[in-house]
C-alpha cells in the first residue's frame, strides 16, 4: 500500500536546519515494556551512528493523559529538539501536538498514526512530520487470510479469536478486520472471542475457559505474542497438538519467531520495533536538521522478512531472530 515517497515536506514545521547537538525525546507508551525498549534501543543505536544526537526515554505508563502531559512539557521546556512518539492513544494525543508544532519541535510517530483516522498513515495533524507504522487493518486481514487458507478443507472450522481489549480502538479495528475476512466463509465458525489484555495469565485463563465450550478448536487467531504464549500453555495442558492446529501471534517477538520456527505456531505478524526506532530517529533528526523527511515510512518494509511469517518463510531467513523480547 503506502509507498515510500521522498517528499520534502518539513519546511514549514522544521526549524531551518539546526546544527550542533540534537536532543530527542522518545515518549514511550511505557518505558517498562520490551517492545518500547526495542524502539528505544533502535533509536539510540541510530543516534550513535549519526553522532551528536542524544535520546531520552519518557515513561508513558500506558496512560494517555500522562503522555499528553509529556508532549506539553517537552514542548514548553525548550530542552528537546524533536519528539519520537509511541502513542498510547492515537487520537487524544493529537490535541497536544500543536503545542509542539508551535514550539517548532517536529514529531515522528511510530507504531500507530496520530489523529482521528486509524488507517491513514499520511500525517493528519500539524506538527507530525512522519509516520513510521504499518497499516493495521491491512495486516490484520493478511493474518486472517492465512486462517481461511488453513480452513479451506475443514467444515466446520472452529476459530477462537484472542484480542487485546475490544475497547481499544486498534483492537476493535483488528477484530473487525478479522471478521471481515472470516465471516464470508460459511465453513468458518468464530466460536469465541476472548480478551487477552496483552497478558499471559489473562490469556491462559481465557483460553482454558474457551476450551471448555469448544474442545475441538482448529484455530487460535491472536493479535499479540504474549497472548499466544499464554494460550499455548492452556492448549498444551489440554493435550492439544499445536502443530496440527493453526495458531497465530502478533508482534514478532523472539519467542514468537522461535515458536514459528519450531512449527508450533503457524504464523506470526511481525513488527520491527528496533528498526522502527531507527527509522523514526532518522526522520526526526532529518526534520531538525532541515533535511528532507519521508512523511510515511511503511514499517513492514523495514525488516528482512515479510509482515506475515510462516515456518517456510523463516526457513528462508535463518538469521532472523525477532527484534524484541517481552
Amino acid at each position, binding site marked *: 500500500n503506502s509507498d515510500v515517497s521522498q517528499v520534502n515536506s518539513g519546511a514549514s514545521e522544521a526549524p531551518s536546519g539546526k546544527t550542533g547537538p540534537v536532543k530527542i525525546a522518545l515518549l514511550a507508551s511505557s518505558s517498562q515494556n520490551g517492545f518500547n525498549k526495542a524502539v528505544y534501543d533502535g533509536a539510540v543505536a541510530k543516534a550513535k551512528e549519526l553522532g551528536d544526537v542524544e535520546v531520552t526515554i519518557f*515513561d508513558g505508563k500506558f496512560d*494517555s493523559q*500522562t503522555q499528553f502531559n509529556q508532549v506539553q512539557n517537552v514542548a*514548553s521546556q525548550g530542552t528537546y529538539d524533536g519528539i519520537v512518539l509511541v502513542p498510547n492513544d492515537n*487520537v*487524544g494525543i493529537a490535541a497536544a501536538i500543536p503545542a509542539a508544532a508551535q514550539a517548532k519541535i517536529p514529531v515522528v510517530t511510530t507504531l500507530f498514526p496520530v489523529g482521528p483516522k486509524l488507517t491513514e498513515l499520511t500525517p493528519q495533524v500539524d506538527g507530525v512530520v512522519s509516520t513510521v507504522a504499518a497499516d493495521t487493518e491491512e495486516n490484520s486481514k493478511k493474518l486472517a487470510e492465512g486462517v481461511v487458507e488453513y480452513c479451506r478443507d475443514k467444515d466446520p472450522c472452529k476459530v477462537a479469536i484472542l484480542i487485546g481489549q475490544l*475497547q481499544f480502538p486498534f483492537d*476493535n479495528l483488528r477484530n473487525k478486520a478479522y471478521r471481515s475476512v472470516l465471516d464470508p466463509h460459511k465453513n468458518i465458525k468464530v466460536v469465541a472471542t476472548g480478551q487477552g489484555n496483552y497478558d499471559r495469565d489473562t490469556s491462559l485463563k481465557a483460553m482454558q475457559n474457551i476450551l471448555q465450550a469448544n474442545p475441538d478448536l482448529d484455530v487460535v487467531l491472536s493479535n499479540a505474542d504474549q497472548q499466544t504464549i499464554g494460550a499455548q500453555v492452556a492448549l498444551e495442558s489440554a493435550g492439544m497438538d499445536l502443530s496440527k492446529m493453526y495458531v497465530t501471534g502478533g508482534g514478532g517477538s523472539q519467542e514468537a519467531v522461535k515458536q514459528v520456527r519450531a512449527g508450533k505456531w503457524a504464523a506470526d505478524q511481525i513488527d520491527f520495533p528496533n528498526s522502527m526506532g531507527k527509522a523514526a530517529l532518522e526522520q526526526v533528526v532529518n526534520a531538525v536538521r532541515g533535511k528532507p523527511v519521508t512523511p510515511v515510512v511503511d514499517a513492514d518494509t523495514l525488516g528482512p522478512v515479510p509482515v506475515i511469517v510462516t515456518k517456510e518463510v523463516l526457513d528462508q531467513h535463518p538469521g532472523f531472530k525477532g527484534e524484541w523480547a517481552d
Partner: protein
Amino acid sequence: MTASASARPAPAAPPGVLPFIRRYAVLIMLAVLFVVLSVSTSSFLTVTNLLNILNQNAPLAIIAVAGTLVVICGGFDLSTGAIFSVANVVAAWVAVNTGSPVLGLLCAPLVGAALGAVNGAAITRLRIHSFLATLASSLVYGGLAVLITGGFLISVEAPGFTALGRGGIGPVYYAIVILLLFALLAGFLLNYTTFGRYVLSVGGNAEAAELSGIRVDRVKLYTFLFSGLAAGVAAAIGVSRIGSGQPQAGDGLQLLAIAAVILGGTSIYGGVGAIWRSVCGVYLLALIDNGFDILNANPFFKDLTTGVVILAAVALSAASKRR
C-alpha cells in the same frame, strides 16, 4: 465558674514545631519539592511550565476537591473515573449529533451529577458501604461508556469544541480558572454553609448527627452527587482538550484522586479535612511526574521515588504521634 477553673490552661492549639510539621506536612513536602526542582533545572521555574502543570492536572484536582467532601463525610467514591468516561463520551456524542459543541460540553456535568446521584441513592437506599457500591457502579458505568461508543472513539470535528480545554484567559487556561472556582466553591461549602457543617458532622458521628435532626442520607447523597458533578466537569475539560470522547478516558483517575485526598491529610475516617490539602496532594504527585520528565531522570525510578515521597509526607504528618 469556680476560681480553680480559670487557673487551668485551656486546651488551645498545641504549640511547638512538631505539631506544625504534622499539620502542614503535605504543604512542606510540596514546598521542598518545589525548591529542589527550581534549583535543579532552569526549565522548571518558568511561567509556561508552571501553568502547564496546573493545567494538566486541573481535571484530576477538580475530582479530588469534590472527593474531599465525600471522604470527610465518611464515604469513598471509586466511580469518578468511570463517570468521567461516560460523561466524556456523552459530551462527544451530543456534540457530534447535535452539531453544538456547547450543548455537548454542558451535558458532561449533567451526566456526571446524575450518575453521582445514582451512586448516592444506591448507597443510602440499599444501605451498603460506598466503597463496594461505587466499585460496582464504576464497572457498570465503565460498561455503559463502552456501549455508547461501541468501543470506538467519537471524534468531534465541530469548531469551538476544543476551546474549553485548550483555550484560556490570556496565558491562563480555562481549566485552571475552573479548578480555582471549583476549589473555592467547595471550600466555601465546607466552611461557610450549613451543608458543609452537616458533612463534617455526619462524617464525625453519623448517629449524633441523625439525633440532631440532620438528614444523614440526604447529606451523603449530595456529596456523591457533587463528586459526580466534579467528574463531569473534569470530563468536559478533558474531552474538549482531546477533541474526542473515549470510553477509557477516565481509567484510574479515581484512585489518583483518592490517593491525593488522603495524601493531603484528610482523614480516611471522615469528620476532618480540608480542600486545600487535596489540591496540594494532587500537585505534589504532579511535581514528581513533572520533575522526572524535565530532569531527564531514569523513569525506572519514578514509581519508586513517588512511593518514597508519599511515605515521607505521611511519616512527617505522623511525626512523633506517641502518647
